[in-house]
């Protein structure tokens, strides 16, 4: 039973490790981890809803090759992202930078929560001011 469990876990992690390429891109595990992290931050523009780590499209493969080469050339994360946005625009980043255009996008969750709280406060405070027995509602069985 224990062995079966181990086998199941190993199968699962084995799939994870080879999700991107058929072989690891770097021998150094730290570099490989950085490579996989960056590949998950970049969008495949051919398939839109996939990162270049997930996609099998030709363009994703080309961008992964470019990423490996830039990393091998010793470029920093920032330089690599600039390289990509210079060519493909901010859309290539899965996490868009905070700019005037994307401000609403980034602020939207906070705004929705604040809006929700305001509505909740208004509704609750109104309801709590109502008398316990609502004359407009004669209650069950009275109709």
């Amino acid at each position: 039973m224990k062995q079966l469990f181990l086998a199941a876990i190993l199968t699962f992690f084995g799939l994870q490790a080879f999700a991107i390429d058929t072989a690891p891109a770097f021998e150094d595990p730290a570099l490989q981890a950085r490579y996989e992290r960056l590949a998950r931050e970049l969008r495949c523009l051919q398939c839109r809803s996939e990162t270049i780590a997930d996609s099998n499209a030709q363009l994703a493969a080309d961008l992964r090759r470019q990423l490996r080469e830039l990393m091998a050339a010793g470029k920093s994360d920032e330089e690599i992202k600039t390289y990509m946005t210079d060519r493909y625009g901010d859309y290539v980043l899965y996490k868009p930078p905070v700019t005037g255009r994307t401000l609403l996008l980034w602020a939207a969750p906070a705004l929705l929560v604040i809006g929700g709280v305001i509505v909740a406060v208004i509704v609750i405070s109104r309801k709590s001011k109502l008398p316990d027995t609502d004359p407009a509602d004669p209650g069950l069985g009275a109709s």
Partner: protein
Amino acid sequence: MLKYLLPIGLFTVLAGFLYFGLGRDKQTLPSPLIGKSAPIFELARLDDPSKSFSNSELAGKPYVVNVWGSWCVGCRQEHGALLEIARRGEVPIVGLNYRDDRDQALNWLQQLGDPYVVSAFDDEGRAGIDWGVYGAPETFLIGANGKVLKKHVAPITVEIWEQEFVPLLPQAKAGSP
């Protein structure tokens, strides 16, 4: 009063977002290359692997770069329009043969006609990355000053050429940004 204004106001805001958001073309991504210097490539010529071609040879003159491949359905669709645009001779069209097989590409040009003054053979897709290519066919207009003036993604038609590219030609020739 507020009871009515608030929902109406919210509705108007939402409707506004949806109107502009849904009406927008989300397939075509804005190119960060517009207004910038066109990336320089140096690649083997499609018709002769022993010779290379660089778009720097065209500096000082406006030209069009058309990204195509024999595997690309949209390219076949736009081929007639490219032949017509080439026939008019307003501006030379350079082909960037993107991730293609040389024999198939040459065969394609022989069968369908060759609108390009020259085709560069980008079999590894490296020039494509520099140009931000994400889906052939793509068509760029480059001015005499080497700046990218326009990018069109998807098959081009004579109508699109006349409406979106031809008005830019005087600017392209003058080389002003």
